[in-house]
């Protein structure tokens, strides 16, 4: 046998029988990490300094308008618009996804065509089209296809600004949601459907009880992304002069000329809304992770409590050691 390189004395293992727990451990040093931390700290301090000292941010104006009545009403409209649109978008999106995955070529084609059209046309254009629907169809009627109608309603009274906004955002969202839901369904193992079929579980129940709950693990992160996108995306309906957050803000700065502080007001609210959704996302994901992971990650509250008890016991241990 050829001889192996002899380990030099420094890295050589201590002779057998040496008690390791008596040796002192010296942590590795990371000078690069320290330098980078220092640079970032200085940059952060500069940003904070400029935010505080530059009077043009007009923080007093921001504070005064943040909870002003019309702003709050705008925020509520934004929330309302987002929630309705998200529900409409994902409900229709789920139907479209199921159509796309059905065995009927017509249903597949219609679903594909819908996604194609509504993803191709810019949202702002769709909104204006819906708003002007009354020009194309003066009245809308419910009845037998190609036959007599039972009830008709004036288009203008049905599709007001809010209606046009919901339709435009919702139908546009449905096209994107359809793909998200479809991806989720495709991610579920084929064996799950076979097991459900072999047990004779009814078709609809297979979808709602077996497939969709498992698909949710893939769907939720992307779906929340979409909802956050919607919160901010609703600002586009200012073209319809609908009083959501951004339009309200723009009306106010048009009147007061306090453009920047008003934009900050809007930004703060959008950040707040997004934060709330992000927190919700954590819990929704945790809910759908049941069974997918062996042990669920702790909630932030549980983690805080855990850290506290760990800290207390550590302090107690140190005290005990001193004594």
């Amino acid at each position: 046998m050829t001889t192996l390189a002899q380990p030099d004395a420094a890295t050589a293992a201590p002779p057998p029988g040496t008690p390791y727990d008596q040796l002192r451990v010296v942590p590795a040093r990371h000078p690069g990490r320290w330098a980078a931390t220092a640079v970032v700290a200085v940059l952060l301090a500069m940003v904070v300094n400029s935010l505080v000292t530059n009077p043009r941010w007009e923080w007093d104006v921001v504070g005064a308008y943040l909870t002003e009545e019309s702003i709050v009403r705008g925020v509520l409209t934004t929330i309302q618009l987002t929630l309705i649109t998200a529900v409409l978008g994902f409900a229709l999106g789920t139907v479209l996804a199921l159509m796309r995955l059905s065995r009927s070529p017509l249903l597949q084609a219609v679903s594909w065509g819908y996604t194609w059209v509504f993803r191709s046309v810019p949202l702002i254009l769709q909104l204006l089209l819906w708003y002007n629907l009354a020009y194309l169809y003066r009245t809308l009627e419910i009845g037998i296809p190609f036959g007599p109608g039972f009830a008709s309603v004036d288009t203008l009274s049905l599709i007001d600004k809010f209606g046009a906004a919901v339709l435009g955002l919702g139908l546009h969202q449905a096209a994107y949601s359809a793909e998200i839901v479809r991806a989720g369904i495709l991610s579920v193992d084929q064996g799950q459907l076979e097991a459900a079929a072999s047990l004779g579980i009814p078709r609809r129940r297979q979808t709602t009880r077996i497939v969709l709950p498992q698909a949710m693990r893939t769907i939720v992160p992307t779906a929340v992304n979409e909802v956050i996108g919607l919160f901010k995306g609703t600002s586009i309906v200012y073209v319809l002069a609908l009083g959501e957050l951004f339009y309200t803000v723009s009306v106010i700065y048009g009147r007061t000329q306090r453009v920047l502080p008003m934009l900050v007001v809007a930004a703060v609210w959008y950040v707040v809304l997004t934060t709330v959704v992000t927190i919700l996302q954590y819990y929704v994901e945790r809910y759908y992770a049941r069974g997918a992971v062996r042990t669920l990650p702790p909630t932030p509250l549980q983690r805080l409590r855990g850290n506290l008890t760990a800290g207390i016991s550590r302090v107690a241990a140190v005290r005990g050691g001193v004594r």
Partner: protein
Amino acid sequence: MTAVATPPGRVEVHGVHKSYAGVEVLSGIDLVVEPGTVTVVLGPSGSGKSTLLRSINHLEKVDRGFVALDGELVGYRRKGEKLHELQEKDLLRQRTRFGFVFQSFNLFPHLTALDNVVEAPVSAQGRPRREVEEEARALLARVGLAGREGAYPRQLSGGQQQRVAIARALAMRPAVLLFDEPTSALDPELVGEVLGVIEDLASSGTTMIVVTHEIGFARRAADRVVFMDSGRIVETGPPEQVLDAPRHERTKAFLARVL
């Protein structure tokens, strides 16, 4: 015990052919399984064993031939000179008469062991949940999983998962149990616990068709062994005959390799 006239669970397979993309996987299978018996299907990989099993409960649609359970066609309804494909609803109802145990368990990972067992009797057979839950607890205890009702499949070992899957199949009170290589995905040390449960069922008089590679199991539990190769049944008979005195060269060669 009083004698029952004829217990249900007679499976007839007649002239079944099945091809995938031009390759014939089953080339004319004829097989009759008498109620209350255990049939073990052996054969090399790719011999069509699993496809046969999946054709029996119509998870696969066969190209030619037919399968019947207690004289009732599986997947079709005869009207005069025509066979009508069953509606999904009727097919699903028919499937509940078969219990199917998969090689890869296919438990529902987002449901607890108990909910896995309870789901189908409630949603497919419309039985009251309370009653089914009680029965499910008893079934889980029977397969040795008392106390693990609340566990999710991923919190269980492979052997435990497969035993939940067996309990899930039993909960439907099927006339016939179909096992598709139930121990092939398990560590050797876990095979015994699953085979034990299956043997226990075998001795209780359930009609079973088991596709497996476990020769020892076939010897202990089978009333009849069927040996398949390249989509055909090569020979069939009681285990001592097929396993110890095989008449066919291909059976001999296969047994020489696996024993």
